């Protein structure tokens, strides 16, 4: 999913919703609910809590529909509501640590993207170069990645990430938000955003490398 403007028939859709057209609402739910849930789970780990966030976001959508002016697309507006509620919930779950503090904490210190032991030490020839290079992935990694089993594994990797890293990678790489939109939505600096994104992506890549090395090709 990418947050982009879809003006086609949008005014029409908004008008139908305002009139109480159930088919229009059901279609809207079918279209976005699953993605909203996935985005919410970027903030709250438990499925039930994410369901609650999304339910609550839909209530916000209904409440705001009368005054929706179409300055952003309906989709962007709906997702802004989800992110906002999900963030509030995440902050509450983190014992009210503000999101910006959470982000700063997770972006601090040194955290190598790859185990430093994978590189040649200063006492060796070619220091800083690979000692244990990345193990190649499947012949056709894209096909392998799209298998249900791999996808389920990636979802578990995301769940295991620290909260701010999980939120940033979900918004950037799953939902297709641009950097600025993420900084605005989460109230974090661009520098922290990029460090979090880098740490999260590096972990997922590393775990995928391990996953591919350990589990043979399956015909899913």
């Amino acid at each position, binding site marked *: 999913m990418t947050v982009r403007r879809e003006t086609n028939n949008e005014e029409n859709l908004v008008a139908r919703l305002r009139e109480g057209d159930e088919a229009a609402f059901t279609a809207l739910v079918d279209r976005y609910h699953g993605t909203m849930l996935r985005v919410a789970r970027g903030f709250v780990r438990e499925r039930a809590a994410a369901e609650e966030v999304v339910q609550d976001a839909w209530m916000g959508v209904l409440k705001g529909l009368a005054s929706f002016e179409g300055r952003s697309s309906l989709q962007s507006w709906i997702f802004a509501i989800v992110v906002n509620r999900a963030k509030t919930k995440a902050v509450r779950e983190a014992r009210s640590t503000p999101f910006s503090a959470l982000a700063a904490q997770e972006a601090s210190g040194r955290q190598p993207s790859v185990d430093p032991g994978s590189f040649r030490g200063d006492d060796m020839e070619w220091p800083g*170069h690979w000692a244990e290079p990345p193990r190649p992935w499947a012949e056709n990694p894209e096909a392998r990645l799209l298998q249900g089993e791999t996808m389920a594994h*990636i979802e578990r990797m995301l769940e295991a990430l620290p909260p701010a890293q999980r939120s940033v990678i979900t918004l950037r790489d799953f939902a297709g938000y641009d950097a600025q939109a993420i900084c605005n939505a989460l109230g974090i600096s661009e520098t922290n955003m990029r460090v979090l994104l880098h740490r999260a992506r590096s972990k997922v890549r590393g775990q995928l490398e391990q996953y591919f090395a350990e589990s043979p090709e399956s015909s899913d």
Partner: protein
Amino acid sequence: MDCIELVELVTDYLEGTLPQADCNRFEAHLRDCPYCDEYLRQMRATLFALGRIPAESVSAAAQVRLLLAFRNWKRD
């Protein structure tokens, strides 16, 4: 640029935020280093996969709850 440096710059490179001079050094390294080239390829494949995680399924209970909420909202 060493490999250990390159892996820390991959996100800046892919996000287009690496300064031009570093970008040139990054690409020069890639041309000489099949391992870093593989690393970057794996990172790109990772992003490909992250963008294609299936959306969560919608439970029937949630659908019913939302439709009821919509009917209530309509009455107000």
